């Protein structure tokens, strides 16, 4: 019997939240099975784009409630947020297709292709499940493998959001704009938000890995959601490497030490939360038996002998640098979800280029700042600078509030402030700061650890705002070139997609690539970071994970990337020139 705290007297609604790849879906599945095994009626709701819930139960599920024969009492439902957003787009755009000019239809579709639309469309699907209805009344528990963001909930709580646009379908738009095309009524959204902030009905489980940056991010999520009334929160640390794995294996020992250090230094706000630790398991989390074991609180039986990955001969970062160096100059942008190591990879690329005698400027958004400090002045051809994303975003927000905000009434100002908390705002503010140095890429290499999404580029290009922004910062004598053209030309700009060799991160990276392609930008290469398969390890648990990685590396090599590189998980933190060169694979 499990002794996990988050399962103790579980309320009706359980939400798991955390970034892609931490194991939310597996844990949500295991939770639903455990509750059903205890005799409850359970509905499992998965929004994982890589959902394998159907596969786990050997049944096809999809966008309707389906009962799971192998687990009595359990039903499941898969919501695809992308598909939900597409349905919404079709509803708006469908009637005018062929009536309005094609270019006009395209501009409408682009406006409805942002992260906000997907998020709101997914929330719309949740709403029905959070409201009592004949659909859900039979269930004791509804388990969600994701949770709405603070941004969405806050928007729905603002009275100003509802005043004109949703009531009359006209007036001031906002990030909530997409909701006006959805059919539900304000009271239903309100009831859903009320259910979320009711501790007797809803428990939120923050899922994290024992990594410093992840825990920092989780602490932010915790505070943001607690502030808006989402108080019933638990913390779950997933896939911790057990001490028993560290015998005679330097890599396993390094991981163990790093994880324990991260847990010891856990942010203060997370310390007061009830916490469960789940150990890394040797088995693949596929199938009922495996999932029933996941939440069992004992050391993994790592006795299964696992072979080392035989003769790992995938291309490394230095192989990519050889090709990049041929151009002599250009813009190199790393793109990927948070936590995949973009800053480290950008530094390794920059050092690797500079070491060949090429002039390089590295610019990072590294919140820790230690990277720029350790690299500055270390190589003759390398300059480093850093922008602070929070400071840039705050400056941008303040500028908008001082101008636009000054003219608004209280409700309008509150709505504007919330619009400015959208993920787009940070992306734009940071990119605006970076764009100041892009023009340098004509003479040297400029390496950046971030890139705008295709959606943002298309919006900015359409409005001409980005265009104005960059021309203003170019010398009047400079050769004229639109920024979009510069980014689309792989001789001038190379976008590298960074990811990890795990299912969800690879899928997220593929989505980023699809988004860039819409903007006519073809990612030049993929970089798979923190690969265990690219290391030597004796640990059976790590070898198992290395074997699992091979399938993902294969998918990147054959389905997604024109060229790719694999970067090993390093024993020591990759700080300083020589370790970064090692990481890139220099002999």
């Amino acid at each position: 019997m499990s002794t996990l705290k988050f399962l103790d007297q579980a309320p009706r609604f359980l939400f798991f939240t955390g970034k892609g790849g931490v194991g939310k879906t597996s844990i949500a599945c295991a939770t639903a099975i455990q509750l059903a095994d205890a005799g409850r009626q359970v509905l499992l709701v998965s929004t994982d784009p890589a959902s394998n819930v159907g596969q786990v139960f050997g049944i096809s599920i999809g966008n309707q409630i389906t009962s799971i024969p192998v687990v009595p009492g359990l039903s499941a439902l898969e919501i695809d947020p992308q598909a939900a957003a597409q349905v919404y787009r079709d509803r708006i755009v469908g009637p005018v297709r062929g009536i309005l000019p094609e270019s006009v239809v395209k501009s409408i579709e682009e406006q409805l292709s942002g992260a906000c639309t997907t998020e709101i469309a997914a929330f719309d699907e949740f709403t029905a499940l959070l409201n009592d209805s004949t659909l859900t009344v039979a269930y004791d528990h509804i388990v969600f493998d994701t949770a709405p963001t603070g941004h969405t909930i806050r928007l729905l709580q603002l009275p100003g959001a509802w005043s004109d646009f949703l009531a009359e379908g006209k007036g001031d738009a906002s990030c909530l704009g997409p909701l006006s095309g959805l059919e539900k009524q304000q009271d239903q959204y309100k009831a859903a938000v009320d259910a979320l902030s009711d501790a007797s009905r809803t428990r939120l489980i923050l899922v994290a890995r024992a990594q410093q940056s992840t825990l920092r991010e989780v602490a932010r999520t915790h505070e943001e959601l607690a502030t808006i009334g989402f108080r019933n929160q638990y913390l779950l640390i997933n896939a911790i490497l057990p001490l028993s794995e560290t015998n005679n294996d330097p890599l396993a020992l390094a991981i163990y030490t790093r994880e324990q250090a991260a847990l010891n230094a856990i942010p203060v706000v997370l310390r007061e939360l009830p916490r469960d630790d789940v150990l890394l398991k040797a088995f693949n989390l596929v199938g009922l038996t495996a999932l029933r074991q996941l939440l069992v609180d004992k050391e993994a039986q790592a006795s299964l002998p696992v072979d080392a990955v035989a003769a790992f001969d995938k291309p490394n970062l230095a192989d990519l640098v050889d090709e990049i160096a041929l151009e002599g100059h250009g813009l190199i942008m790393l793109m990927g979800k948070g936590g995949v190591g973009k800053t480290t990879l950008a530094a390794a690329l920059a050092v690797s280029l500079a070491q060949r005698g090429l002039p390089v400027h590295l610019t990072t958004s590294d919140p820790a700042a230690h990277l720029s400090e350790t690299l500055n002045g270390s190589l003759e051809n390398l300059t480093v600078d850093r922008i602070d994303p929070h400071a840039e975003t705050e400056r941008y927000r303040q500028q908008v509030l001082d101008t636009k905000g000054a003219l608004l009434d209280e409700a309008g100002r509150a709505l504007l402030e919330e619009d400015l908390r959208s993920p787009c705002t940070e992306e734009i503010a940071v990119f605006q700061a970076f764009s100041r140095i892009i023009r340098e890429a004509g003479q040297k290499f400029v390496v950046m650890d971030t890139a705008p999404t295709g959606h943002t580029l298309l919006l900015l290009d359409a409005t001409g705002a980005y265009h104005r922004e960059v021309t203003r910062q170019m010398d009047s004598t400079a050769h004229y070139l639109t920024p979009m053209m510069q980014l689309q030309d792989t001789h001038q700009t190379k976008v590298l997609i960074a990811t990890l060799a795990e299912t969800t991160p690879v899928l997220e990276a593929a989505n980023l690539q699809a988004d860039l392609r819409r903007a006519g930008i073809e990612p030049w290469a993929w970089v798979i970071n923190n690969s265990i398969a690219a290391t030597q390890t004796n640990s059976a648990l790590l070898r198992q994970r290395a074997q699992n990685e091979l399938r993902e590396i294969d998918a990147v090599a054959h389905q997604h990337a024109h060229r790719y590189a694999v970067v090993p998980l390093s024993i020591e933190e990759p700080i300083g020139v020589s370790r970064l060169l090692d990481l890139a694979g220099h002999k």
Partner: protein
Amino acid sequence: MATIQVFDPALCCSTGVCGVEVDQQLVGFSADVDWAEQQGAAIERFNLAQQPMLFAENAVVKAFLERSGAEALPLILVDGDMALAGRYPNRTELARWAGIKETAEKPASGCCSGNSCG
């Protein structure tokens, strides 16, 4: 009183917050609309990304889009006739169309009163 209809381009936010620069014209215009409505003007705004059917169903707007494309928006109709295109009206223009007598109050978006002259 005349009916003023504003056909906005596809904006994800009417404030243009999603753009690299906040469009100062849009900012001022939203305030001017509020002002004119308080004076009794009848003003409707339509966002291409939210209500494209209203663009398609209006012959004047549809013909305008076919000729000049979405990048030529906004388009302002007064009682169904084209009154302005390609930029937002200032407070004086709104007042004239709506038949409002302007008081001594300073227009918020008058050209050259701020730092952006469109």
